[in-house]
Each structure stands twice: as structure tokens, then as C-alpha cells.
């Protein structure tokens, strides 16, 4: 039994249209996604804009309504997390992309970080203060700064405040939605290092959503690649980066700029080849609607979306 198990998850958004604004169709933002997370590991969900990776994360935590499918967390069904026992809501927290807009600018850091504590735990004022100060220290910010407002912090510090809020209730699973995309490289390094550190310290499990393959490779044990609401490939970091099987994954990996200028020409030729292969074998990898097929195992850890044989 895995720690988090997502089974055939679907999130469809209605499209309104016509004279009477009836539902004329659905956008299948997430269209039958299944994966599972092991405790204490980091699972990376990768895809380009519109792939449904963020919707998947938001659906698990209850920010998007699940159309169908099942989500199990630690053996408990949390598909309808809003009505689930509050334990699950406490144990799963989210870190958002933009540290500038995800913190209420009118609230002091103290109130921002204390908010989840107030929702779930009955603490006295002084206990609460002590907890917040501990959390601030844990994320590397000075405990005295709790009376400041978010705008008085830099981007990296703000993201740490977001992390402090997320770990306030000692959660077991954190869904991190593009946590470093809005940050400069050096600040990004700071946040990534820190996330790794608290993972060990607090025995956290991460669902790490990102479009940046470099970051994903650095952070994740297992990776799922999404395209148009479906999985195209899943495997260990090694499977994905050194042995990509699906043409979409190959293309994605080929598109990452190489930091070695000597390999420039080599890379360009390689990309050209992959592009040709993509165009030639497109129909082998996608169905008539241009969507991915069901995942088929190619090894113990490696799954690829291929048409069923026979």
C-alpha cells in the first residue's frame, strides 16, 4: 500500500456556450491519471502549461472538484477531502508558486503562519507565539521578524514564510506547485536546499509540480510526465532522463538547454533528429484525438503510454 494513491483521477471543467449558456462540452483538464507516492520520497509531476499537472495537485488537496476517480492517503479515502476527517486536511499542505501573491499583504507574518494553527489546534496565545517562532527559526528566518509584513521580505524569504505556514501543522505530505518558478537562480537554490533539508528532518513526502526539468531531476525520486491531461510516461529520474521512451518525453528532455557550450552543435543535431522522429511517429504515440494512450510497463519502475498490442 502506497502512502498516497491516486487512481484514475479525472477533473473536467464544463464549457458553457450557446444562447442559454448550457454546458456544451468539457475541458478534460485531468483525464484518468493514476500514480502513487512512497513515504519520505519526492514525486515529480512534469508538464507544460495546460498539461493538467497543477490541476492534479489542486484536486488532491480539494481546491478543484474531482469529477471521478479515487484518492487514498495513508489508507484513508480522501477523494472528498473537504468532508474527510480533518486529519487528512491537516496532514496535506500546499506550497504555491508565487511568493508575492500567495501571502496576504495586509497580514503580519505571525498571523499568516499562525492561521492553520488557529484553524486546527486550540492553542493559547503564548503557545501559539512560541510555535510560530519555532517555525520561523526552522525555516531560517529570525523569530523577531514575525511582526513584519510580507513586503518587508525578499522573494526567497517569502517563499520560506509560505513553507513555514505549510509545515505549521506538521503535515506528512506537501504538494509544492512550482515553488521556485518565480525565483532567481540563487534564491531558488536556497529554497530547494531547504526543502530537501526539512524533508529529512520532518520525514516529509513531496508531490513536486514543475515545468523545469532541471529542478525536477535535482529534487525527485520518481517522475510522471503529463501531456494534455494524461500521463505519457512515468519512471525513476534515471528512466526518464537517460532512457526516455515516449516521443513526447524525448522531445521534452531534448529541449532542455545544455549548460555546456561545447555540446551546442551536438545538442542541436540531436534536437533536430528528435523533432523528425516526433513528426514521423506522432501517430504511433497518440490516438486520433492527439491524446496519450494508457500506460504500459516497460520495466519494474518504468511505464510508457503506448497503444495496446494486438
Amino acid at each position: 500500500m502506497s502512502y498516497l494513491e491516486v487512481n484514475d483521477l479525472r477533473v473536467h471543467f464544463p464549457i458553457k456556450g450557446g444562447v442559454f449558456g448550457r454546458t456544451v462540452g468539457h475541458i478534460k483538464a485531468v483525464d484518468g491519471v493514476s500514480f502513487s507516492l512512497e513515504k519520505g520520497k519526492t514525486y515529480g509531476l512534469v508538464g507544460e502549461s495546460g498539461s493538467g499537472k497543477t490541476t492534479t495537485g489542486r484536486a488532491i488537496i480539494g481546491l478543484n472538484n474531482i469529477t471521478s476517480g479515487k484518492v487514498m492517503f495513508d489508507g484513508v479515502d480522501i477523494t472528498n477531502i473537504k468532508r474527510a476527517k480533518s486529519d487528512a486536511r491537516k496532514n496535506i499542505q500546499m506550497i504555491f508558486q508565487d511568493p508575492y501573491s500567495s501571502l496576504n499583504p495586509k497580514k503580519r507574518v505571525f498571523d499568516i503562519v499562525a492561521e492553520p494553527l488557529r484553524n486546527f489546534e486550540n492553542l493559547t496565545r503564548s503557545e501559539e507565539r512560541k510555535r510560530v517562532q519555532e517555525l520561523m527559526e526552522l525555516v531560517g528566518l529570525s523569530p523577531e521578524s514575525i511582526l513584519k509584513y510580507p513586503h518587508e521580505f525578499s522573494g526567497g524569504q517569502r517563499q520560506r514564510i509560505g513553507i513555514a505556514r505549510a509545515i505549521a501543522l506538521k503535515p506528512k505530505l506537501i504538494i509544492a506547485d512550482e515553488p521556485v518558478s518565480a525565483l532567481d537562480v540563487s534564491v531558488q537554490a536556497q529554497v530547494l536546499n531547504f526543502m530537501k533539508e526539512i524533508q529529512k528532518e520532518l520525514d516529509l513526502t513531496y508531490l513536486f509540480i514543475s515545468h523545469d526539468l532541471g529542478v525536477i531531476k535535482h529534487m525527485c525520486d520518481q517522475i510522471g510526465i503529463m501531456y494534455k491531461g494524461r500521463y505519457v510516461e512515468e519512471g525513476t529520474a534515471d528512466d526518464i532522463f537517460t532512457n526516455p521512451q515516449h516521443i513526447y518525453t524525448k522531445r521534452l528532455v531534448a529541449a532542455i538547454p545544455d549548460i555546456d557550450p561545447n555540446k551546442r552543435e551536438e545538442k542541436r543535431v540531436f534536437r533536430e533528429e528528435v523533432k523528425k522522429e516526433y513528426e514521423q511517429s506522432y501517430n504511433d504515440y497518440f490516438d486520433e484525438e492527439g491524446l496519450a494512450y494508457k500506460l504500459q510497463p516497460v520495466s519494474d519502475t518504468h511505464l510508457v503510454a503506448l497503444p495496446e498490442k494486438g
Partner: protein
Amino acid sequence: MWKFTLRRTLIMIPQIIVLSLLIFVLAQLMPGDALSGQIGPDVDPERLDEIREEMGWNDPWYEQYASWMGGVVKGDLGDSFRFKMPVSELIGQRMVNTFWLSVATLILTYLIAIPLGIASGRYNDTWRDQLITGYTYVGFATPLFIFALVMLWIFGFKLGWFPTSGSITPGLEPGTFEYLMSKIYHLILPALSMALITTYSTIQYLRNEIVDTKHKDFILTARAKGASESRVYNRHILRNSLLPIAAFFGFEITGLIGGSIFIENIFGYPGMGQLLVESITLRDYTVLTATTLLFGVASILGALLSDIILSIVDPRIRIK
């Protein structure tokens, strides 16, 4: 596009039904009826009840509403109890007057708002802008009826430049040039008084649109192409800022209705606004409900117009 217009027009139907119900019920709730205060004490109360029965005033409200609406749909707004004539006839000429007053006011409003808004937005935070914004604050703070009274007193009575009441000099033949000029002459002062006050919102709106648009990224793109400042303004900033103003047009109409009630009464201008107030004081319910309904429908049409204009001018909505 046509789908959007059709849908938007269909939405109007329930709006108008709710509006008519509301007007009708409110009129019913008003104390007294058309007979109160008009009948001498010597009239037999039984006779009064007979009249009420005859007029259908004792029927349940929904029956009265149904018969009223039935008439309205056929264009029959009932008879004025006071003027002893069909309401539609009574309203006819006044509606034309109010229409022209509104047109004149709108023209003046835009004549004032567009140059001032552009100057204010283009040269924002200069003395020119501060002067214009100052004016808009005054316009915002000044009650229309007081301002109109002052205008009437200065230009009508003291200086005698404009007539002080009516919509036409008596005795002129309709259709002649003199008749037309007299009409316009009577319009100017009330329209100007209203425009000077109500224009503030359009100026502010235009100014803010321009200031906003000025800081958009695509303005940088235009400059990077080598467009001159004046071209950047005319082609990119102004064009993009005037479109929302065009959409605002429908809502101006709604604003005008409120204004015309004050203005027509102060300037003794025989329009719908004046009729509305008269019908309230005289408890002439058929007239009251009819005028209110027409004003309400005009507001709803104004909003519709706004949406349609916006959908025509803004490709982002048009394409949908």
C-alpha cells in the same frame, strides 16, 4: 457574436418582468389612491366604493397586474386619472422632449469629457491634470439640483441669456426653422447644466484608462518600433482607451434618467421627469407606473447597449 446579442437580449425579458412587478407592487403599496383628496366630503362613500369597484381597484393585485401588463404589451398604458386622457398620448410629446434633452446632454458631456480626459490622462500629474481633476471633484461633490438652480438664476434670470422654462416659444409653427431654433435654444441651458456636472465620471474614467494604457507593455513595443509620441498616443493609447468609454455609453443613459428628473423640474421643461414628479404628487398611478416603467426599460436597454457596443469593439469578447 449574434449568439451573444441574442442571449443578452433574452436576459432582458425576465429583467423587465421583475421590474414591472416591482413597480406595480410599490405603486399599490403607496398610501391613498387617485380619489384621495379629490373628492368633497359631501360625496357618498358608497359611490366611492362603486367607482373603485368599477375601476377594478378592489380586485386581487395579481389580477390588476395581469390586466395592466396585458394593456402595456398592446401599447395601452391606461388612462390618466387626472388629465382624463390616455397615458400614451400624455407621454408622447414629453418623451420626445426628454429624448432630445438627453441627446443634447450626451453630446455636451462627451464634448467636455473627451478633450479634458485626454489632456488629464496624457499629461497626468501636471498642473493641467490637477486642474481638471479638481474640476471633476467639484462636479462629484456638487448636487445637481443646486448647481442647476444657480445656472438658472445666473443665465436665465440675471443675464437673461436663456429662457427660464418650457421647451418652445408659444405660437411657432412646427417644422419651421424658427421652431427648431427655439427648441434648441430651450435645450441648451438645462442640457449644459446637467452635462457640466455629470461629465465628471466620464472624464475620470477616460483619464484612468489613458493612464493605465500608458503603462502597458505594448506601448513600449510601439515606441520600440520607432513610432513618434503623437502616433503612440493616437494609434495605441487613445484608441485602446476610448473603447471602454464607448461601452460606458449605455450606462450614461441610466445616469441621465436620474438627472433629467431634477433638471426638467427645475427648468420647467415638459419631459418625462417632470411628468413623473407630477404624477407622484397628484397620485396619478397610471401615469406614475407608466413613466417609471419606461425609465426602467430605458436603463435596461442602456445596459444592453453597453454590452453590445463592448462586444463589437473589443475583439476579445467579439470572437467568443
